[in-house]
């Protein structure tokens, strides 16, 4: 395979990194006069087009000695991540206009997106590590890019916890390498499948360390301590990127490493990692939902809600480990619908805080009268996060819980019971926010109008939430085909 063919397989990543470099160079030559927004959108459009080309020509294969792989799984996430980055780019227009560092902001966003796409393609412990850290370092800086002290505090906290978790992850990788003698995921899969009973404990230690390191990226308990502070302190567009794109990429790499690398059901350790993720899921949901009830700051509320939702997705991971056939596609379907709903909520929050300069729950009182279109979409997306029909969130939860029950392990049935109870708890704070928006008297009567592109984005998010709630078949079949690529 020629060098060109190999770079072709990671084409979207090359485009995103190249765009970031071009954007920074232009800004260096003509400070503050470079058309940064247009360049960022052009780069994302080119990367999206490249991904589309891959999807249409059915590209598949490995490159760079098996370090990266192009398959339907990577394509699924490439579309998702590039679309999220484009939405955040548009929603952040006003933030970037006020910022002194608009070029750096967009460049870092492109680098983080490119690294995430690479992460979903990584098929070797080394490339997983490089892509993960490139994503993380770009996000540390993004979290600290705001002008206030809270933003730099968020950046530093994120960085310190991130660095510790990366080191823990690496120790797990070193053990996996020491066991299997290779850093390639297929090689590790072969070692696990061979069933070396004598090294089972070492293998468990290795994957517990890996799960701990990746748990930080997924924002699951007990590695969630950074989430509320970083989500609250970071500029809201950055928070939305962390909550939506970063989380999807983290679950993608967990699926790739655990499902493709450590094997689905039926290996000597599949029971152990199923139990591990079941505990993580239960603790994340219960803790996240309980703490979210107490919040009055909407960004902090969304941070705890994101921990709880990570718990829901971890139910799917536990089902995958237990050998559920619909487990992997359930996780992908959930991530797809969660992206639409969460993005809708965040774009609305960005628009509101741009206008009224507050993230307090009480300032959302009577939003329906001040901004009917924005408020109705916000409420719709909140209903989807709760999981109420006919929104996509309902089907996503049904799908993922069904996968857990289908796996046929008694403890997974109990986990689903816990998850359903947690849904009831989450309804309390999601619907309280919705009630504040719809029923409460507004504190001020002035109307809030979002910019036209932002309204377009909101409409798209709402359309996604409703469309996939009523006609889920296209997304389900895409998720299934993506999941099949992992086997």
């Amino acid at each position, binding site marked *: 395979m020629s060098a060109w063919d190999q770079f072709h397989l990671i084409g979207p990543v090359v485009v995103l990194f190249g765009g970031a470099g071009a954007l920074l160079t232009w800004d260096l030559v003509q400070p503050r006069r470079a058309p940064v927004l247009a360049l960022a959108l052009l780069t994302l459009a080119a990367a999206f087009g490249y991904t589309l080309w891959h999807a249409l020509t059915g590209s598949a294969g490995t490159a760079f000695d098996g370090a990266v792989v192009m398959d339907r799984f990577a394509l699924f996430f490439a579309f998702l991540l590039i679309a999220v980055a484009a939405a955040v780019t548009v929603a952040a227009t006003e933030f970037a206009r006020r910022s002194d560092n608009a070029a750096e902001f967009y460049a870092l966003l492109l680098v983080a997106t490119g690294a995430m796409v690479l992460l979903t393609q990584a098929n070797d412990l080394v490339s997983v590590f490089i892509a993960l850290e490139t994503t993380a370092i770009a996000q540390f800086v993004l979290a600290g890019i705001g002008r206030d002290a809270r933003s730099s505090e968020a950046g530093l*906290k994120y960085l310190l916890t991130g660095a510790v978790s990366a*080191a823990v992850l*690496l120790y797990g990788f*070193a053990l996996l390498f020491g066991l299997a003698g290779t850093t390639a995921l297929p090689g590790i899969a072969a070692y696990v499948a061979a069933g070396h009973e004598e090294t089972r404990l070492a293998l468990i230690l290795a994957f517990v360390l890996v799960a701990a390191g990746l748990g930080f990226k997924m924002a699951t308990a007990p590695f969630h301590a950074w989430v509320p502070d970083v989500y609250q302190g970071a500029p809201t567009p950055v928070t939305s990127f962390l909550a939506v794109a970063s989380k999807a990429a983290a679950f993608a790499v967990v699926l790739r490493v655990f499902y493709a690398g450590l094997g689905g059901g039926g290996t000597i350790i599949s029971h152990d990692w199923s139990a591990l993720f079941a505990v993580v899921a239960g603790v994340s949901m219960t803790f996240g939902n309980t703490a979210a009830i107490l919040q009055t700051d909407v960004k902090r509320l969304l941070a705890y809600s994101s921990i709880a939702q990570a718990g829901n997705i971890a139910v799917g991971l536990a089902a995958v480990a237990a050998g559920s056939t619909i487990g992997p596609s359930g996780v992908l379907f959930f991530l797809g619908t969660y992206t639409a709903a969460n993005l809708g909520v965040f774009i609305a929050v960005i628009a509101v805080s741009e206008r009224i300069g507050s993230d307090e729950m009480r300032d959302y009182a009577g939003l329906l009268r001040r901004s009917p279109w924005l408020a109705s979409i916000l409420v719709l997306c909140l209903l989807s996060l709760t999981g109420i029909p006919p929104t996509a969130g309902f089907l996503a939860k049904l799908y993922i819980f069904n996968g857990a029950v289908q796996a046929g392990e008694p403890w997974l049935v109990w986990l689903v019971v816990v998850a359903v109870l947690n849904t009831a708890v989450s309804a309390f704070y999601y619907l309280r926010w919705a009630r504040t928006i719809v029923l409460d008297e507004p504190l001020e009567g002035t109307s809030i109008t979002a910019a036209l592109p932002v309204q377009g984005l909101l409409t798209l998010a709402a359309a996604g939430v409703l469309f996939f709630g009523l006609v889920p078949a296209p997304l389900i079949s895409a998720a299934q085909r993506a999941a099949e690529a992992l086997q």
Partner: protein
Amino acid sequence: MSLPETLTVTLAHYLALSGVVFGIGIAVALSKRNAIAVLMGVELMLNGVNLALLAFSRFGAFAGGTEPLAGHAFVVFVLTVAAAEAAVALAMAVLVYRRRETVDLDRISLMRW
């Protein structure tokens, strides 16, 4: 009792050392309240990882031999990424220090739950 005349250093010795270095690193990273000291702990953790990778690469893995130099190559990447991370971390610490006159993590607490 006299010391053995030759001491053979085996994989187990390297792994024990690697575990100790990693353990000291994580203890430092979790207990120190100064951001710079936490970073030092992280560096120790990464060096513990590097020792383990190099030892496996030199002595072979449990499954038999390893891919030639795979561990060595991994270590080069770990070092590079650690340097990049440290650069960003120090820049961030300077930024916080300029605004708050401290990098004590207990006092960097505008946000608390």
